[in-house]
């Protein structure tokens, strides 16, 4: 197969996959299934954007906090200032990115576990602020009755309303595809290469003359931008947001998706978020025993798939070879 053929078939496959994703609501009538897929798409955006931050060697636990920023920004803009939800969406992302920019330069001086913990504290401070500032945020009661997205009107052509989950599914699907495309482009660009080199040899790249902190802050900002966007989407989809909607464990789970999926490959967080979002739905019947199974899955994955779920096939091949070629 020649190179162009390979490219063509790759394009064909991706095209097919996207077509499949778009046709799901035609096949699946169940709103519950769509809800789970919406959550999965949300988590894919979160985990993938977190991976961008992580690729500069910084493990951020502030993604939940950034979602809170995004969710509140968009909800308050829409409800208090009457701004269109479509304008609020990017503004929510920008608000999160702005905060990331503000704290970014001092933060990236802090390394390793300390950085991770500082982001935990940042997220906690965001929550506390939302609880404390009652006049603006409504305190711990949160914001309720957040309106769904405004109708998407192309004058003279169509007007799309958001009455059911199907519309939200297309909304998040488009958002997810755009995000992934963007993140992929970044990874392939000079920024991505720089980030990876920063991660691998922090000292070396500094001596080569790359301003590492600028790139780290950039990665942090972009990652937080998408967290803010998802926060905005979440508030419009669920209609309710409280300061503790995205608590410590919410941020932790995004990290779990990313690492269990596999941090080394672009597709890792995608697999991780998808599988780990839908998996708990299969074990619902176990009720209070669900966490055992979920925890078991996480641990097995970490023990046997050091490079993540994405590596499952390669590891299996290796195991298979060992097992049967020796005999």
């Amino acid at each position, binding site marked *: 197969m020649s190179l162009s053929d390979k490219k063509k078939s790759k394009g064909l496959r991706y095209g097919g996959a996207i077509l499949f994703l778009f046709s799901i609501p035609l096949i699946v009538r169940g709103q519950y299934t769509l809800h789970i897929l919406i959550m999965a798409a949300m988590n894919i955006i979160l985990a993938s954007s977190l991976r961008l931050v992580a690729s500069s060697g910084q493990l951020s636990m502030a993604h939940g906090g950034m979602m809170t920023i995004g969710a509140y920004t968009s909800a308050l803009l829409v409800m208090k200032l009457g701004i269109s939800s479509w304008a609020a969406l990017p503004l929510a992302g920008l608000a999160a990115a702005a905060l990331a920019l503000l704290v970014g330069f001092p933060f990236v001086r802090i390394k390793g576990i300390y950085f991770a913990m500082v982001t935990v504290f940042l997220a906690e401070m965001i929550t506390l602020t939302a609880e404390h500032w009652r006049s603006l945020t409504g305190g711990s009661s949160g914001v309720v009755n957040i309106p769904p997205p405004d109708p998407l009107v192309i004058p003279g052509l169509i007007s799309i309303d958001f009455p059911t989950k199907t519309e939200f599914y297309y909304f998040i699907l488009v958002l997810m595809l755009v995000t992934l495309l963007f993140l992929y482009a970044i990874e392939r660009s000079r920024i991505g290469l720089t980030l990876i080199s920063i991660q691998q040899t922090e000292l070396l790249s500094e001596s080569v003359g790359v301003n590492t902190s600028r790139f780290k802050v950039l990665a942090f900002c972009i990652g937080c931008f998408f967290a803010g966007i998802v926060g905005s989407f979440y508030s419009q989809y669920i*209609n309710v947001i409280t300061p503790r909607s995205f608590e410590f464990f919410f941020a932790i789970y995004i990290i779990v998706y990313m690492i269990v999926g596999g941090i080394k490959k672009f597709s890792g967080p995608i697999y991780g978020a998808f599988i780990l979002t839908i998996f708990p739905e299969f074990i619902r019947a176990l009720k209070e025993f669900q966490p055992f199974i979920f925890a078991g899955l996480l641990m097995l994955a970490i023990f046997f798939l050091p490079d993540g779920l994405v590596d499952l096939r390669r590891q299996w091949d290796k195991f298979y070879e060992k097992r049967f070629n020796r005999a």
Partner: protein
Amino acid sequence: MNKIKLGFFVVLGFMFVITVSQNTYAQEAKTLKIGAVFALTGPAAAGIKDCMDGVQAAADWINKKGGITVKGQQYLIEVVPEDNKSAPDGIVAAANKLVYKDEVKFIVGPVVPGLSMAMTPITEKAKVLRCKVNGTGNKAEMKPGMLYTFSTFMEIQYVRSVYDYFVKSYPNAKKIAITGPDEPGGQAMVAVAKKEAEAHGLKVVFSELYPFGTQDFYPMLTKAMAQKPDVFDLGVGIAPWYAGIIKQARELGFTGPMFAPSATGNIYLIPMLAGKDFSYDIFFLDADLKSPKMPSIVKEARQQVSNKFGVDLTFGHGAGWESLWCLVQAIEAAQSLDTIKVAKVWEKMKSIETLYGEGTMSGLKDFGINHVVLKPRPLSRLEKGEIEFIKFISP
């Protein structure tokens, strides 16, 4: 390799799609599925698992008595239990599953107001009738337009009666300190309590909301004690919080009365957690369910719970029990399984049976919608670490 990866992805996707979409159990003619959403895992599970057991026990009890009869057709209740994982996204997933996958038309639960709020948009949109357990009375929990959301009771409706009782029993008390947890319910309760305290001639010298899950109340109590209050209103809460405040306030030298116009979840825990020596001059809207003064229906419920789960009836069991029972009474009164009809009949019901006696529908005055069961509730005192039942009070 990519092909296989993609194949894996697609197969997984299909597997998932098929499993979740293809489970419409063939509905037996005589089964009525009722969803129950409570925290079974996560931090809220601690106090609330009892509610789920209470719902199950009530379902058995109702089924044993012949289930629900609607227009001559007999239905047996099948409870579909779901875990809300103590988190907003957990309850949204659970609600979507119950509404769209199990296609239940009736749901009971949850308890925590914040979680209830996250669920309301889904059930309202799908016209699923939901009877939530407990509730304090935050405006977001219950308001006009929530056509399909009912509640077995709202704490704020009882605040006045409790203050009436208090002022009568402690005519010398002048200064009051009011506290409560910082969550939607706690906020609503403190606001109402402040108003009632003033209406009853008490001076509110201190009021503060403590963060959810506080263990050490010394800082808050130090501040409160500096105002030299005669009495503490503990607002809404769960047993460990109440017990923590009681123990620590007593340690700091407060000897006056303390009360909450609310239930504790499990009153037996209070003397256990706070220490018997500190458990005096305290009263709650809660009951010693083992007391012989309890109505016969409580005894039945106690029997049922202990048969099924081998434990003693708690207030949590009772709350779960009542939510299902009230819902069932509404369905029978409406003689229909159509949620619109049931809702319309329910809000006009003059009489509805509860564990502690006959109740009625209310809420128009407080919430603008007649969706709350108003019923007698037990008032109990703690004295020398012992629980003693005083009387049933109605607003």
